[in-house]
Each structure stands twice: as C-alpha cells, then as structure tokens.
C-alpha cells in the first residue's frame, strides 16, 4: 500500500520535472532569439480604466449633490425642460451648485472601468460558437435524419451536403460564404461567418446523429410503431432520446472543435479572440505573450465545456 503510494508519487514528481524542463527549454529558446518578455503589456487588454468626460447637452442650470468624499451627483436642468443626471469625481467639477451652464460645457470627469479588446474578442468567439452550434444541431439533425431516409431525393440531398462540406477545407468555405454568398445575398460578415461554421459543424453532427440513430436496436422502432405511434413520435420519444445519450461524447468533441475552428473567421475580419490577439500584437509588439494568452483563453473555454459535458453525462448515466 505504502510502496504503491510512493511509486505513484515518484511518477508525479517526474511529471513535474518534465514540465519544469520544458518551461526552462522555452526560456532558453527565447534567449537565443533575444526576445524580451513584456507580460505587463497584456492585462490592459482585458480590462482598463479610462477617463470619460461629461458635457452639458443644452443651456441650463447645474445642481450638485455631494455623494461621498470622492463622488458627486450632478443634475443638469435644461431650459427646454429636459434633464440629465450623472455621477462625476468631485475634484474634476468645473462648476458650483446653482451655476448656469451652456451647451457643450465640460462639467466633470469620471474614471470608468471597461473591458478590453481581448474580452470583446472572447465574447465574439463565444457568440459565434453558440449561434453556429445551435444552427449546426438543427442542420445536423435534419441532414442526419435525411441520411437514413428511404426517399432517394431526401437521402441524396443530405448525402451531397455532408460530402460537400466534409470534403472541402473550412477556410475555403468561409471565403466562399463571405466573398461569394455574402456579396450575392448582402449578408454581413458576422452572419456569413456564423453560417459557414454552422453548415460546417452541421455536416459532422449529421454523421454523428446518423450513427447514433443506427446504433439503437431496430426493435425499439418496431415496438414503438407496433403501438401505433407514427415515425415522428417514435423519433421524438423513443429513438432520439436514446441516441442523444449515446452520441453525447462525440457531439461534445465536435462542439469543442467548433470553438477552436471559429478562430478561422478572423480571416474575414471578424474581431474574434484570434483577430483581437493579432491586433494587439501589432500595437504592442508583444507577439508571443499575446499568442500564449489567447491560446490559454481558448483552452479555458474548451476545458470548461468538456467538464460541463462530463457532468451532464454522469447525470444522464443514472437510468441505465
């Protein structure tokens, strides 16, 4: 028992040693190319505080109310009867209580905390992944059911869709969507990127769903149909719930891939996480730091998704 524990501990120590060695190798490599790390340039792209100046929008009277030792509540009562209220730093105030203000007078300023471009990029990546996942499931479900249809038209269309998408590079698909379809149909870059990703993931989801449905014993379909339930009811209540439980792991893998693949939409100038990173590199010259940072952010997204899926799987496993 104890010796087993020691053995395991030894290998854990080895793991740590290997990781330290790799980290050391990285610093040696960067020394070789005379690279200076400027990690301190990165945090401002997550969040920053900036000064926002507040102006009067009309002629009127100013009323000031001290809130605490730092901030004051300003309310501007304009002559035309409207009103503006906002908070400013007390030491930035240019007027006193009861003063007249005229249009475009600077009243004061306030320090605001805002999100940087990395956070905005992260949100864009999340949005585009979420929208294309939802659409992708719908496309995949329709195409997957089409693939097992007995009707040659439906089956043919579904097969052509799946083969066409799986046989061409995603990057090319994105270009086609943006430059060709985007121009013809007048859709913006975000919609074009989302649609390209959705169709892409849909083709893979279709194959996963088809395999999942076909893995359910035919007796399930027969039992349900023999009770008088139609094809649609049987799919909804009997086949798909069982199939979805089985295809959860490959489906999750597909959506994790999608998050990573979404970085390709940066080529059509959508400011996702990757594009945000490239923009920062050009202004800070901290290229490596930015690359490692966005890689870590992608990793954070994919790891939390796979943890969520593992949790759901455990919850689902109860009824078997």
């Amino acid at each position, binding site marked *: 028992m104890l010796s087993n524990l020691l053995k395991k501990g030894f290998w854990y120590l080895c793991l740590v040693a290997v990781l330290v060695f790799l980290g050391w190798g990285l610093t040696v490599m960067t020394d070789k190319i005379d690279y200076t790390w400027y990690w301190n340039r990165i945090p401002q792209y997550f969040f920053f505080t900036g000064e926002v100046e507040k102006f009067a929008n009309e002629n009127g009277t100013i009323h000031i109310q001290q809130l605490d030792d730092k901030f004051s509540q300003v309310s501007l009562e304009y002559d035309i009867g409207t009103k503006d209220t906002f908070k400013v730093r007390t030491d930035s105030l240019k007027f006193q209580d009861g003063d007249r203000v005229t249009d475009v007078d600077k009243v004061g300023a306030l320090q605001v905390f805002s999100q940087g471009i990395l956070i905005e990029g992260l949100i864009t990546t999340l949005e585009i992944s979420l929208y294309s996942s939802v659409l992708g499931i719908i496309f995949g479900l329709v195409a997957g059911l089409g693939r097992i249809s007995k009707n040659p038209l439906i089956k043919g269309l579904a097969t052509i869709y799946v083969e066409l998408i799986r046989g061409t590079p995603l990057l090319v698909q994105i270009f086609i969507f943006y430059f060709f379809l985007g121009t013809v149909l007048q859709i913006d870059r975000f919609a074009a990127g989302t649609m390209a990703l959705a169709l892409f993931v849909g083709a893979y989801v279709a194959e996963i769903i088809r395999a999942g449905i076909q893995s359910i014993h035919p007796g399930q379909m027969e039992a*349900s149909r023999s009770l008088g*339930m139609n094809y649609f009811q049987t799919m909804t209540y009997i086949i798909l719930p069982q199939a979805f439980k089985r295809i959860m792991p490959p489906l999750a893998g597909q959506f994790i891939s999608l998050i990573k693949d979404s970085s390709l939409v940066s080529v059509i100038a959508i400011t996702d996480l990757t594009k945000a990173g490239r923009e920062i590199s050009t202004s800070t010259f901290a290229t490596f730091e930015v690359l490692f940072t966005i890689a870590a952010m992608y990793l954070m997204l994919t790891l939390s998704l796979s943890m969520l899926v593992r949790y759901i799987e455990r919850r689902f496993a109860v009824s078997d």
Partner: protein
Amino acid sequence: MIKIDNICKTFIVGTHVVKAVDHCSTHIKKGEVVVVIGPSGSGKSTLLRCINQLETIDSGQILIDDVDITHRKTNINKIRAEVGMVFQSFNLFPHKSVQENINLAQQKVRKRSKKEANEKTDYLLKKVGIEQKAHVFPSQLSGGQQQRVAIARALAMDPKIMLFDEPTSALDPEMVGEVLEVMLTLAKEGMTMAVVSHEMGFAREVADAVVMMDEGKIIEVGDPEHFFTNPDQERTKLFLSQIL
C-alpha cells in the same frame, strides 16, 4: 376477424432471394387463439409481423375486420394501435420507467389524459402481477418481468388482437411459467391471439388451432389434439418429435 389471403414476402439477402412467406392463407376468428409452430427460418415470425405491417407484403391481401391493411388509403398507425405485439426480446424502452413505457402510447396515440393512462397502467400491472414495479426502469427487472411489462404495454391500447412473437424463447426456463400464465389468462378471457411459440403445453390448453409452417408455406392446420395424436405430414411428425 383476420383474413390472410395468399400473401408472399421475399427477402433479398446478398444475392439470394429468400421466400420467407410463400403463398400463405389462413384466418383467425374473434376470440380464437392460433398457435404457429415450425422450424427456425420457416417464416412464422415473418407471417406474424406481416399482420401489423412491420413487414410489407409483396402480394396477397390481409384483412383486419374487413379493412385491407395494405391499401394505400389505410392509416397503418390506426391499424397498429388495434393490434398488440409482444416481441421475443421484449423491446421495452430502456430510457423510460415501467409506468412511462405503458403510458406513452396511451397518451400519444389514444390521447388519454395522464390520470386515465396511470389508472389503466396500474390496473394492467396488477393484472400481470408486478404492480410494485411501476417506477423502476426495465433494466432493473428480470426477463420474465420485462416480458410481462411488454404484454401490459400492448394491452394498454385495448387491442382487438394480440400477436406474440416467440414470447418465451429469450427467457430463462424458470421464468417461462409466469409469462405463459399471463397469456393463459388472456386467452381464457377471450382475447384473440396469434402466438408463435413452441410451448405445446400452452397450445394444448388454449389453442383453437395450430398452424405448422415449413419453408415459408403453411403445411398443416388443425386443432392441438390432431397434432399430438396423429399429424398428417411427415415433416410435422419429425418436427414435433424433436421439440416434445
């Protein structure tokens, strides 16, 4: 009640054409119990599955209460709701509890309220002797219990006829009895039944007719006594000597 007229069903397996059911005709009257016997691969299951269109016939005609079930205008789902089927491998829905298994089609096809369905389910579970298992999942039941749930599920639709496709073949020997007992009760209550089975004891007790099939053809029909005492066909004699 059920009239099977000259039906054929062929399967194409690779390059072989298998005549699973070859020009078969028979009929089952209301309240009758018909037991179909025959060696494996003789087409008895296929014949049964044709009755509720799990297999579509190539030619011939099947009438249930004078309705041609293969006619283009016949709503097959309606027919199937009237024809209960019990499978060799139970085919319960593993992701649903026993109660949900029996409730589902009642609610979705018969449009009963949840309360009505529950009442029917409770009644049927009592009838098949497993009323305490309503809330467990099929995988937690023994084979015999699962098959009894399957029978209850089919009965919940108030079928006019029950089809049993080798209902005891997949069971451990000590569980055969409990399933047969339920089937005997049903037969004695006057349910119309078509049973593919080699349980000759069951046949002897309740069957009105026994149908012997071989190589897709019905080769002999008679009452059970006829089969036990003096079957006409050599093939039937050979077959019965092997299973009895």
